[in-house]
């Protein structure tokens, strides 16, 4: 049973007959969306600031310095500025699609956010197909991007969206296939369960160390994730030196910032997936320690039908925080890695992107899957014998 529904069951039990179940569902859904949106905004703001700082320091300069300590409030200032900017829609643009595109992009990524586990016991939705759901939802953004490119009625944007479509189609395959390797080891697509499967060896039983094919699979995943999130060296849909700003050339103000939020949220989600399926997810020695000290379960589900939850283990909140924090740190390390790569590498050409996707990543990922499967089978046989 998922955390939310357990919580809801508890609430229903608590509130009794006063509130109908559908209202509880709706209310919790709205709250979840609000939290997810807020989370995305926070992530985007922090990532933008981090990106500017990383870029600055890599390039021997400071980055933002004036708004707050080392410019940490810069993103908020920028956000306010973007909100106040004039909302421009080109005369010849398709107005409906033009306005719909950023909304769709943002909606898709908020939806994908639903499967992100904040902590082992605090989730928006404990989806069994979590990984599949995230990948499916985040590739929904492509539709928004293509829509934006088309609706802008500009040649540069149509180039950008054409490239995005081609690129995402090409890189969905290696992304999915390379993720098959840890999924095979974990035996689940659920993010929470996959993370829990790595709790052995004092929280260091990461999938990364459990199979020799995991490291190449991780590298392949990293490359595919970069391409999937349109990050350099695969930022061809934007390609600021070639296509001005690609699909968002005609966008400005808050609509443009939606694309930006999507980009950073997608980066975050991809990093989170990587963290969960390769780098132990919630698990680390610290998490292990916290779990040992305070217990793991937040909600101790009681036995009686009247009271679905009998008690909340407040001590476990520490564990939950540590676990959630661990995942957050790992995700941001992934984001940092992406930024580091972005500020190091030149951009690949579009045909090379295709070649790399189809001729290099996909076969290599398949080899990894095969190797990992054989290894697992051999390992199992060894254990059994």
């Amino acid at each position, binding site marked *: 049973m998922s955390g939310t529904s357990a919580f809801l069951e508890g609430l229903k039990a608590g509130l009794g007959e006063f509130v109908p179940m559908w209202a509880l569902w709706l209310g919790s859904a709205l709250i979840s969306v609000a939290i997810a949106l807020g989370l995305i905004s926070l992530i985007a703001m922090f990532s933008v600031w981090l990106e500017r700082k990383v870029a600055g*320091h890599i390039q021997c300069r400071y980055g933002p310095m004036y708004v707050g300590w080392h410019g940490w409030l810069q993103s908020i200032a920028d956000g306010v500025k973007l909100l106040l900017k004039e909302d421009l829609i080109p005369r010849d643009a398709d107005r409906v699609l033009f306005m719909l595109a950023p909304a769709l992009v943002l909606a898709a990524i908020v939806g994908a956010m639903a499967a992100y586990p904040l902590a082992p016991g605090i989730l928006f939705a404990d989806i069994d197909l979590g990984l599949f759901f995230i990948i499916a939802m985040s590739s929904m953004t492509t539709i928004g991007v293509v829509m934006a490119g088309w609706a802008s009625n500009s040649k540069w944007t149509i180039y950008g969206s054409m490239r995005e479509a081609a690129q995402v189609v090409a890189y969905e395959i290696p992304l999915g296939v390379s993720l098959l390797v840890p999924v095979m080891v974990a035996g689940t697509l659920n993010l929470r369960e996959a993370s829990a499967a790595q709790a052995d060896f004092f929280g260091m039983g990461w999938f990364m160390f459990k199979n020799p094919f995991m490291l190449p699979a991780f590298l392949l995943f990293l490359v595919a994730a970069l391409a999937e999130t349109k990050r350099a060296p695969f930022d061809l849909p934007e390609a600021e030196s070639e296509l001005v700003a690609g699909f968002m050339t005609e966008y400005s103000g808050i609509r443009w910032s939606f694309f930006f939020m999507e980009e950073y949220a997608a980066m975050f989600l991809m990093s989170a997936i990587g963290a969960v399926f390769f780098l132990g997810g919630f698990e680390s020695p610290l998490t292990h320690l916290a779990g040992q000290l305070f217990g793991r379960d937040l909600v101790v589900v009681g036995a009686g039908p009247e009271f679905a939850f009998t008690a909340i283990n407040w001590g476990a909140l520490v564990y939950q925080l540590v676990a959630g924090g661990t995942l957050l740190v790992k995700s941001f390390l992934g984001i940092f890695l992406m930024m580091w790569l972005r500020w*190091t590498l030149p951009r690949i050409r579009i045909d090379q992107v295709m070649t790399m996707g189809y001729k290099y990543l996909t076969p290599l990922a398949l080899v990894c899957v095969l190797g990992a499967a054989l290894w697992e089978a051999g390992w199992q046989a060894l254990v059994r014998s």
Partner: protein
Amino acid sequence: MQQTETAQGYVKNIWDTVKTTLVGMKITWRYMLQKPITVQYPDERMPIPDRYRGIHYLEQEKCINCLACARACPIDCIEMEAVRHGKELEWISFTLDYQKCMFCELCVYPCPKDCIHMGTEYAFVTFDRSEFKHDLLSFKGMAREARIRMKEAEAKKAAKDAAKAAGGGKSAEKGGEG
């Protein structure tokens, strides 16, 4: 990543890509940990060398209104006006149009009195275009010293004339005039 014929080339491609990427990341990592080289501009400023070619300044006392700088200027952005009282000058204007000026320092060299210089001021910002026509004069009219010198010179001249008149004894009226 394109047109790979041989298996060897295929592997080499991957190897090269990974290797050069790591080399690049090493370099950027090293710089990330170093102290940035930029300065926070309005608060800190880079030192300005002595020869910096910024907004001009004029040593007005030395200037003799010879127009050498105005003639040397390729775009004729220097204009000056002064009234001459004997040896002394009464200044009316000495303007430099900074909309035109290209800070080439050609006006500085021909100056016989070495009185126009390029200063170190560079941020000259205004909301009004007319203010770019900058008056280099620190005072208008005549300097106090010049006035005194003029007075003295006049007095001297008068005295001389008087002496001449007294000595020559030719024209008492002339002496009286002075």
